[in-house]
Each structure stands twice: as C-alpha cells, then as structure tokens.
C-alpha cells in the first residue's frame, strides 16, 4: 500500500492537518502536500480511468507531465475539469472527483472496452464508423459524443476573477531550479532587469531531491546553496521572482506568455485566481529541466507503476511512500537513486532490474552495498495486477519475454532516461539535435528562435540544454546568464561559475521496448501514451498502414494528444515508429511543440474581458431614451440600435407593424446617428470620390445629395450611402452603420498607398453628430411648427440639403429618403441630440409622432425595393446584379472595381439578378431559402436557380414581400418559383418588380 512515512517530507508541515474529499470520501493531508501526494498518503493509488479502454489508472508522475491523475475540482461556479492532481496544491476543504468512468471509479462499465481492445485499434474511428451511412447520425455520433472527451464542461458561470499583466524585462528566466537560479544570478549581476519564474511553489527544482544528500556547490550542500542564492536574488532590486508561474509559450520577437496561479492553493483569498503575464523580454533563458521517460513493458499502466523520479519525489518532498515493496526497472544510473532513497527510508526494494548487461556505476555499487539485489541484462516481461501491482515477471532484455523469475511487489519505479524540456525553445522555431549518448533531443544552439535583429532571443540552460550532471548544469547556466546579459546590451561581471560536484554515471542504454523482442501479446499491453491509450502495437500498426510521418502517426493513433501533449509518450512513440520504419530517430523527427506548455485556464486567457467589458457597446446620444421607451435592442456592429419600440402588453411583431403603418400614415422618428459620416476634403476630393464610387461625384453641386455605390477592386459591392457636397472642396459621405470604420480605412488605404500625391484628407466624424430621420407625410408640418428654416419643396427639394436652425437647434437637414416617404434627415451636434429628439417628440405629439426601429426601416425600404448592404450583398454581388446600372457611370474612365466588372464571369448573362418575390398565398418566404429549378447537379442535388435575400410581412400591402437573386430573373416576370423551406414545406412565389410600393416615387418627392 501507499502510505505516509514518519520521516522525510521537506515540503509538508506535519504540525497541521487539513481535510479534503475525493469522490465524496473525507481524507487528510498536510499543508505543502499536492493532491497527488495526499491521495497516495491515503492509499488512493487508483485515480482515474483511461480514455479509450477505461483501464484503471494510477498516479505516474509528480509534476506537470502527469497523464493519468486528472480530476474534477470544485463544485458549481468553481467547478473545473482535468486538473492535474500532481500540480494541485492541497488546501482545507478541497473537493475532487475522478473522471471518465460510470457508475464509479472502482466499478466502471466502460472497462468492457478493454476486452474489446482487439477491435479498437489505432484508427478504428475511421474504419468502423463509415458504413452504413445512415448510422452516422443516429448511432455512431451519439456514441462517440457520449464517450469522447476527458472530464465534463462546467455548467455554471465562473465565479473567479482573472487578469492580464503586461511586463517588460531585459531577461526572462523560466525555471527556478539550480540552473534557473544560477542563470538569473549571472544575468542580474550585469545590472540587467531580470524576471525569474518557477511553476511550482518552491525554488531549487529536482536538485533538492536528487543531489541534496550527496553533492555540493562551492563545497556547500545543495539545499544550502539554493537557500543562499535565492536570498541573494531576492535582495537585488533589479530581480523579480515569482513562484507558481509557468512559462506557457514563446512567440515571435521575444513575446512570452506566462501563467501565474495566484489563488489556486488559497481559494478564499482576495484577488484574481490566475494572471496571464504578457511579457516582452530582450532575452529569454529556459531552464526548464527534463522529464523522465517511462519504459515500455507489458502492464506498464497498472496502478503502482510510476516514474522512478516521482517515487523518490513523493518520499523526499512529502514523506509518502508509493509502495511497501518497490521493484526498480531502469536503463540508466538515475533510478538507483530511487532505490537508495527507498531503502534508507526503511522500505523494501526487492529487485533492481537493469536492462544494461554491464550495469551502472557508483550508484549501483552503493545500492548493492545496501543489500539490494541487482539483475543485469534483465527486463520486465509483464506487470501483474489489475487495480494495483501485485508482482512483476522478469525476463532477459535481449529475449522475447520468456519468464525467468517473479517478484512480488506493490510498486514499480521505472526509468527510461531523461528528455530535456525543449518545448519553449521549440515554440518559435528553435531546432533540436539528437544526442546519441543520452538518447534524447536537445536544443541546437546554432539554430535558436530568432528575433527582429536576426539573432537568437532564447537560450536554454542546465539539463534543458542537455547538461546532465550538477557541475555541468551550474557551469552551463552561468554562461547562459552572462551571454543573455551581453546580448541584451549589458556587461556581464567577469566571474566563474561556482564549482560543483558531478556524479560518475555509467552510460545509458537506449531501451524503447522491454524486452527487446517482445511478442505481440506483450506489445499489445505495453503502453506508450497512458492518457490516450496508445500502445506499442498501435504505432506499429500505423507504420504498417502507411502513416510514416510522425505528424500523421500522431493523428492516426492519438499519440501525444490531449492535456499532457505527450510529455511522457512522444520520444518513446517516435522511437517505436522509427524502428518500425527502419530509420534512425532523428530521421523521424518530433511532432511540433505548440504553446501552451501545459493547459492554462480559459479565464486567464479572457482576463478582464468578460461581461460588459468583453466588448464595449457604442451608444448614440439618444440611447438612454430608447432604453427607457421600450427599445428591443439589436446589435449592429458595436452599436445597439432599437429593433422596435415595444409598448407594454405589445408583441415585438405588433410593434413593428404599428411603426410601419404610423410612419406611412402620419410621422415617425428614427435615430440614424449610427450611420457613418466621413468628411472628404481637398482640391482633389471630387476626383478621389470619382474613383471610389461607381457613379460620378465630381459633378455634384454644392447643396445637393447623391446616392452612391462603392466597390472593392475585385468589383464586388462593399458599401452604399448618400454623398452630400458641402462646398467645392468638401464632401460628406454617409456609409452604412457597420461600414464607417471599414470605409474610412478603405479611403485611407487608397489615399496613402496609391494616390499619395492627391490633395485630399478624410476624417471620420460619425460620433460628432446626432442624426434623426423625420419621416412621413406630416414630417414637413412638424418642422414648420418648430420653425427656424424654410423646408418647403421649393427651397429644400428632394436630394437637397441645407444648414439652418430648427426649433432653436443649429442643424443640417438632408432631404433624403430610405422609406419612400417625405423624409428629412437632420444632423445636430451630438451634445444636442437628446434635447432635439425631445423637442421633436413633444412638438410631434399632435401629429401622432412615434419613434421607429430598424425592423420598420427594413420593411419600408424593402417595400420600396431599396437594397441593404449585407442582405442583398454578401461579398460576391456586383451592382449590376442588383439592377443598379443607373448608378454606374458610363462616362468615367476608371473607378475601383470597373476593370473587374468587365471580367467574363462578371458579365455572364447567367448571373443571378435582383427581383421582387410575391408569395402566391401572401405568406412570408423563409429568409435565405433557395429556388429550385429542373434537373440535378453532379452530386445528385436539385439545381438551384436563386435565393431569397430579404423577406418581410408588409403591413402596408397586407402580404409577404421579398427580394431575391434569380437566374435571368428580370426576364422571368410573372413566373412562379418553388422555394423548399427547412420546415419541409415548399413555398411558391411569383417573380415581380422589386418596387412594391409607390413605384413612381410620388410620396417622397412632395
């Protein structure tokens, strides 16, 4: 069993006991425990079920690389799935539950999948779920959805807060082990500003476990050295040190994201839970250490089989023994350290199984001297046990797995060597070298990630750089710190690295499969990726089936996917793949390392940007009045516009109908402030607008307005609006509500990059004005009542504008109409907007004035056959499609889009063109419905000959009206088309003119 020891435990505070629950069961731990160490102290080795076969899984590692111990943390608004027990610090009242099983962790129905594993090999999704096709929707997809994914998505809104933090530093050091500390010190001694971050809650890293009793720096024990250098760094004003902060990703030009977990270990504390640091560093040093590799032998996933380094971490750091009798399996000297530590802690180590025929160096002798039996050239044939290791079977490494011996045990500590953590180095293009001696990839210092200057901006230090013993680590880190300082423009102190001891290890023997010639039945139980249930046989199958690229194999087998991203499995997997392909490992290469290093919370990514702050709303000057008067809001760009003004007891639909009828019969008010307003000014303004609009703007007279169309250079209609000429040099261009910023940018682009010698300035004055459309047959009466300027048809004719005052407000009045009614669009200073609106509403009450919203606007414009950008256009429509040829100048030599509109596809007579559509029975056509024609296309689908672009119920006409684009539409007047709806019905509509109401324009021109 696994249990708490009475000795060891440098990180825990035994004087206090805290309580937590796992799957509803109360357990005890100490401050300083991780959830994993506390679970082990309570003999809870079984912590989850595997993804595919639902096999029982236990804790394997002690850090970020843990593949199995993923738990749900918290409840309700603080619920979070997939949290690694090994990096979760214990706190009083913690609640955790295990994942991926039903009905319980101990008894899981899904375990049946393990017996079916022959039928669930790599790629089984692709092979199994193809036929019959109808099964996909009703059988396969529901099944996959039920079984896919780790953990559950939270259902409640996250109760915690998060923030972003911007930091600028000369040198960023990631990793607070001895290498990171020494590199930070060497860099900081130059006077450079240094930020040092460590993902765990303590400084010193692995050396505090591995070297603490046996090795020295400057003749000082390692723990003393760490204590001293940490204190020195803390005293330096140019150094910032952060614990519980992980370097998450390295990006272009020295941008680094780091993830600080402020309150995960103290959930009741004030302040944000996580902080995402957005760092700009001149130089980054990654001192991120290495991760131990598992060995691939049959049953290496049985709970109780752990990394050798993790076993000693639990003993030394937390005073927890993972097992009473631990067998060691190794191909290198490092695992002997585990045996020695266990033995000295009074635990039983019945056997060390070393795959190397010659065995190890000094550590082996030390282990032997402690009375531990060492078997050389041997391997584990198979681990026995289901929910917990019961024994191991031993064979020759060189053989096929014939059992020579059996040893009873309840834990296995395995070590397949170490892989430097090169993730951060690789994120932004750092290249790797294959180190044959240590069988690992390490950074290629000649090919670093490069910054704007063309020089490298990341360097690795210590074990992360392939320096494998303490003396080399300290020396490498010291040089890295000095080199980074120099590169950042500082003068490093002339100093030597502190002298440290080094261990004389015997060489490692690469072992990718145990035993070397393992039979299929053993390989089929040898796990490479514990999290995704990928076995040696799966990778070999993928190779046989032609997935030779490591990236293809990854996706076919799922090796190295999900939350751990193959931190344990990748190197072993690609070694197996290389062997299957008969090529050396470097020829296979690695999959791409992508940020973040370990998963970071969605909350941290969002930071403060949630709720109202997520996307600030733009409000017109009359926004609050609308809100108080029943506005049903509609988002338009970043604006909110009233869709309709709904009265108490009224439905939204009824409100819209009332608004249309009232505006058509008496008078309505529309807040048009959101329309874009761009001032284009200068001696070349007319020439410039002639290039931007399809029609001629330079001939427009001051005091007059003209409707214009704007196309992109590829000919497609992008915006429309009314242009008013203010004076000889000045135009005011109205744009659509959503188009103001885009069209402003469009104008700037052409002015700055193509016609930079033209004398024109553009200014976006959209928010400087409040604009109100006064619309309806009684509009003029209202303005005359308020008085101040002549708005008669003679003085201010249709498509004219004038400056003046109305009701005492300085204003500019445009006689333009988007409704077909007599209409004045009146612009006043933004600050006068609400008062002007109030004055109109008050004076208009005797005429029956009512405000109206965007849906009423839409219906009225559709009744008139006016197009709407975004409804009738979708980025593939040219003005000619919409019957707008009258707005395209034939005289102009050039305008943006003119040449494109001459291309053969644009002049194709088969292009769909704008028509009106009238349902035969007066109902409303479904929006976006397609008209079907005779015959079928190459895919056996019915041919489509048109589609609905706008569709409404017109209260004016008492029937459904629509516009649409139809092949040869204008030549097919009177023809009835069929529109199948998604509701199963087929709608019939007659092709008519798109102008349904007042085709002569008599109502607007009065």
């Amino acid at each position, binding site marked *: 069993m696994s249990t708490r020891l009475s000795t060891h435990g440098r990180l825990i505070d035994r004087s206090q006991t805290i309580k937590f629950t796992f799957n509803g069961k109360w357990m005890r731990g100490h401050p300083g425990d991780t959830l994993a160490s506390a679970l082990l102290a309570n003999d809870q080795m079984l912590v989850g079920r595997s993804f595919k076969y639902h096999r029982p899984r236990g804790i394997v590692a002690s850090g970020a690389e843990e593949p199995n111990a993923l738990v749900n943390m918290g409840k309700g608004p603080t619920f979070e799935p997939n949290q690694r027990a090994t990096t979760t610090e214990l706190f009083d009242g913690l609640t955790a539950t295990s994942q991926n099983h039903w009905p319980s962790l101990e008894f899981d129905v899904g375990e049946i999948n393990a017996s079916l594993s022959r039928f669930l090999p790599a790629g089984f999704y692709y092979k199994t779920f193809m036929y019959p096709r109808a099964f996909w929707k009703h059988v396969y997809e529901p099944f996959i959805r039920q079984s896919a994914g780790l953990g559950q998505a939270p259902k409640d809104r996250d109760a915690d807060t998060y923030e972003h933090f911007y930091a600028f530093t000369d040198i960023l050091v990631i990793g607070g082990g001895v290498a990171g500390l020494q590199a930070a010190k060497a860099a900081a001694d130059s006077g450079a500003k240094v930020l040092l971050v460590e993902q765990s809650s303590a400084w010193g890293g692995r050396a505090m476990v591995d070297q603490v009793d046996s090795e020295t720096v400057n003749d000082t024990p390692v723990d003393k050295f760490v204590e001293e250098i940490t204190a020195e760094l803390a005293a330096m004003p140019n150094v910032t040190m952060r614990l519980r902060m992980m370097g998450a990703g390295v*990006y272009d030009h020295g*941008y680094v994201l780091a993830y600080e977990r402020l309150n995960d270990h103290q959930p009741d504390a004030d302040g944000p839970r996580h902080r995402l640091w957005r760092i700009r560093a001149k130089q980054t040093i990654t001192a991120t250490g290495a991760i131990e590799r598992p060995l691939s032998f049959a049953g290496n996933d049985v709970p109780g089989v752990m990394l050798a380094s993790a076993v000693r971490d639990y003993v030394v750091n937390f005073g927890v023994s993972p097992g009473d009798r631990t067998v060691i399996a190794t191909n290198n000297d490092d695992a002997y350290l585990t045996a020695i530590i266990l033995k000295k802690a009074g635990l039983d180590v019945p056997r060390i199984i070393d795959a190397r025929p010659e065995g190890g160096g000094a550590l082996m002798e030390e282990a032997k001297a402690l009375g531990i039996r060492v078997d050389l050239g041997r391997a584990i044939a198979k681990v026995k046990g289901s929910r917990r290791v019961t024994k191991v079977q031993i064979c020759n490494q060189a053989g096929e797995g014939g059992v020579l011996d059996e040893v009873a045990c309840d834990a296995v500590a395995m070590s397949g060597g170490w892989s430097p953590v090169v993730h951060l180095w690789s994120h932004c293009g750092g290249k790797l070298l294959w180190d044959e001696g240590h069988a690992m990839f390490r950074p290629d210092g000649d090919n670093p990630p490069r910054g*704007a200057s*063309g020089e490298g901006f990341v360097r690795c230090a210590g074990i992360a750089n392939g320096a494998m013993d303490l003396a080399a680590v300290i020396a490498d880190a010291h040089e890295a710190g000095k080199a980074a300082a120099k590169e950042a423009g500082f003068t490093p102190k002339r100093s030597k690295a502190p002298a440290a001891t080094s261990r004389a290890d015997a060489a490692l023997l690469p072992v990718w499969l145990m035993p070397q010639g393992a039979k299929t039945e053993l390989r089929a139980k040898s796990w490479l990726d514990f999290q995704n249930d990928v076995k040696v046989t799966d990778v070999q199958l993928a190779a046989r089936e032609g997935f030779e690229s490591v990236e293809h194999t990854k996706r076919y087998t799922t090796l190295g996917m999900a939350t751990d991203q193959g931190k344990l499995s990748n190197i072993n997997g690609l070694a197996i793949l290389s062997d299957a392909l008969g090529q050396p490992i470097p020829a296979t290469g690695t999959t791409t390392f992508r940020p973040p290093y370990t998963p970071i919370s969605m909350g941290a990514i969002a930071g403060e940007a949630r709720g109202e702050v997520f996307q600030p709303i733009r409000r017109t000057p009359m926004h609050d009045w609308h809100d108080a008067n029943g506005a049903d809001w509609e988002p338009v760009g970043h604006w909110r516009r009233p869709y309709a003004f709904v009265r108490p007891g009224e439905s939204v639909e009824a409100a819209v109908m009332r608004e249309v009828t009232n505006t058509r019969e008496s008078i309505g008010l529309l807040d048009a402030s959101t329309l874009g307003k761009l001032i284009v000014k200068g001696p070349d303004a007319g020439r410039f607008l002639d290039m931007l609009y399809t029609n001629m703007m330079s001939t427009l007279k001051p005091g007059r307005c003209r409707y214009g169309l704007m196309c992109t*250079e590829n000919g497609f209609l992008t915006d429309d609006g009314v242009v008013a000429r203010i004076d000889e040099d000045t135009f005011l261009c109205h744009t659509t509500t959503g188009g103001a910023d885009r069209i402003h940018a469009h104008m*700037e682009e052409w002015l*700055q*990059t193509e016609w*930079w010698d033209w004398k024109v300035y553009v200014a976006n004055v959209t928010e400087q004005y409040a604009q109100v459309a006064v619309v309806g047959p009684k509009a003029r009466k209202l303005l005359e009542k308020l008085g101040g300027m002549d708005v008669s048809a003679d003085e201010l004719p249709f498509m004219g504008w004038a400056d003046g005052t109305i009701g005492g407000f300085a204003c500019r009045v445009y006689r333009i109409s988007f409704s077909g009614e007599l209409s004045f669009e009146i612009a006043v200073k933004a600050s006068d907007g609400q008062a002007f609106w109030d004055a109109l509403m008050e004076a208009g009450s005797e005429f029956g004035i009512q405000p109206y919203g965007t849906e009423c606007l839409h219906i009225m414009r559709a009744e008139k056959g006016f197009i709407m950008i975004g409804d009738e256009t979708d980025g593939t429509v040219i003005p000619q499609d919409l019957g707008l040829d009258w707005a395209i100048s034939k005289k102009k030599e050039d305008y943006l889009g003119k*040449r494109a509109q001459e291309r053969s596809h644009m002049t194709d007579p088969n292009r769909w063109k704008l028509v009106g559509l009238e349902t035969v029975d007066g109902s409303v056509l479904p929006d976006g419905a397609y008209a079907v024609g005779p015959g079928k296309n190459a895919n056996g689908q019915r041919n489509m000959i048109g589609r609905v672009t706008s569709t409404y119920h017109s209260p004016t006409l008492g029937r459904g009206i629509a516009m649409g684009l139809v092949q040869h539409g204008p030549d097919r007047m009177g023809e009835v088309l069929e529109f199948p709806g998604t509701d199963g019905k087929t709608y019939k509509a007659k092709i008519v003119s798109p102008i349904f109401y007042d085709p002569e324009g008599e109502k607007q021109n009065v």
Partner: protein
Amino acid sequence: MLMLECPYCGVTADETELSPGGEAHLTRFGPGASDDEFHDYLFMRENPKGVHFERWRHAYGCGKWFHAARATDTLEVFGTYPAQTTKPPQEILDKISAKRPGWTWRDLK
C-alpha cells in the same frame, strides 16, 4: 507576435496595434489592362520563404500605412519605410544583400 517600427511616428508597435495589408509594391491595373495583367494584379502574389516586402498599417496608432522588409522564415526585420514609394530604399536593399547574399524577390536582387 511581431514588433515593427512605424516609420512615421517612430513607435515600435506590437502586431496587435497593426493591421497587415499583403504584398507591397503592386502596380495597379485598371480599365484597358489585358485579362492576364488584371488577373495577375488582383490575384498573383509572391509566397517566399525568406525575404519579403509587405504592407502594414499602424491601425491603432497613427493610422499610417508603411512597408516592412522582413524574412518570413526567421522573422528577421530588415527595415520599415513609408508606403509612398514604388520600390524599397537602397539602404534597405543593401542591408538585405549584406545579410542574405543572393536573395531575390520579384525582379529585385
């Protein structure tokens, strides 16, 4: 995230402050151009692994368009310069030649 210096306001800006504008130094073809010329102007773009000339706008800053000469493979930036020109300044071309002998881009060497 790239950083580029805006040649107008002198700010070294994060990519989030900028908007990309595709390939630099295109010659506009309009009415009268052949189908091939117009097609090439509209659609054909360089896609180099190495030296490239791009348009950027300091969209959330001074609003100005500028050009950047940089390497797409290493993200090295050789320089930025105002957009009101039809070809890169000689000093930037010299700098590229010094760092990447034998480079080519369209008809530039």
